[in-house]
């Protein structure tokens, strides 16, 4: 029977993700028992190195690696969901990690918090719309708008009784509204 060697820098090599049906794992991984035996390795040094490398792989197959990757993906989703939509997540337990609400299969554009990215964009949009167009909304209802003031100026300048002080005051208000 051939005896194996394992390079000392084996852990520095890149990793490949291998998909395997769970029903095959006990059968295929179980065959690695041959590599756990001293007789498979050319000497004690390679046996010690190989034994630990094989067991690290066996541990990684079902547990640590994939679960860590999935947890990071879920955490990234929650971070983006909170930042963009304002969704509030609560950690119900840490071991095992349980977070509510659960991540949905799909979501719409409705946001939960005005301080989220979408919320702040909404606030800016409504501010501009109210300031410029005079449209009242749930956040802003100032009056008169920039357009109203400009129209007043136009009307005043068109009439025979033009009041320059009044026009100047309205222009100053327009400047204030525009920031």
């Amino acid at each position: 029977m051939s005896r194996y060697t394992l390079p000392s820098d084996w852990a520095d090599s890149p990793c490949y993700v291998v998909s395997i049906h769970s029903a095959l794992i006990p059968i295929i991984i179980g065959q690695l028992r041959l590599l756990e035996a001293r007789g498979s390795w050319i000497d004690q040094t390679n046996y010690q190195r190989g034994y630990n490398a094989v067991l690290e792989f066996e541990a990684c197959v079902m547990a640590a690696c994939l679960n860590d990757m999935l947890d990071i993906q879920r955490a990234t989703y929650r971070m983006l969901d909170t930042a963009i939509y304002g969704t509030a997540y609560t950690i119900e337990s840490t071991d095992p990690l349980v977070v509510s609400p659960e991540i949905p299969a799909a979501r719409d554009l409705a946001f939960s918090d005005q301080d989220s990215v979408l919320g702040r964009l909404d606030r800016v949009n409504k501010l501009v719309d109210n300031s410029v167009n005079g449209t009242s909304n749930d956040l802003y209802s100032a009056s008169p708008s920039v357009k109203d003031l400009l129209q007043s100026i136009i009307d005043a300048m068109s009439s025979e009784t033009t009041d320059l002080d009044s026009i100047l005051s309205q222009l100053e208000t327009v400047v204030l509204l525009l920031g």
Partner: protein
Amino acid sequence: MLAELPILILDFIDASGSLGSMQIRMKSGTTAAAAQAAAAVLRAHLAPLSGAVIVQESIRFSFVASPNPTPSGATLMPHMGAFIFNCADADTYAMLAIPAFKSEYVETTGAGAGVLIDQTNSDVSNAITTIIDSIACNPFGSDIVSIAATYLQWR
């Protein structure tokens, strides 16, 4: 469990590479330290009588179930519960595989259904804790300190 007499086993190899062995039973109640001391004396006097070379010495303390128990359940010997432990030295591990592992301790839901062993089960968690707290170690003497993974293997 009933204690059998301790046995000293001496393994020989001849010039052709053939292996052979001899066994010497020791008195009841012999301790491991006493057995090891006696083995050294015996080896010193027996080795010169053989043209083969002693390559390995083993001392075995055996205990047998009495009366012979009747195996129960439907699980077969290769159906093993593999328990992979982290050891004290960095990047070292230990494997303990329980033969004919009962299916009732295997998860039935989730991605690991039918393969992963349920570590939340009290029998399983107690066994894991007992192993960690014991004097068990890996083949290189590194203490077992925590569990890394548990799942079924056909070995």
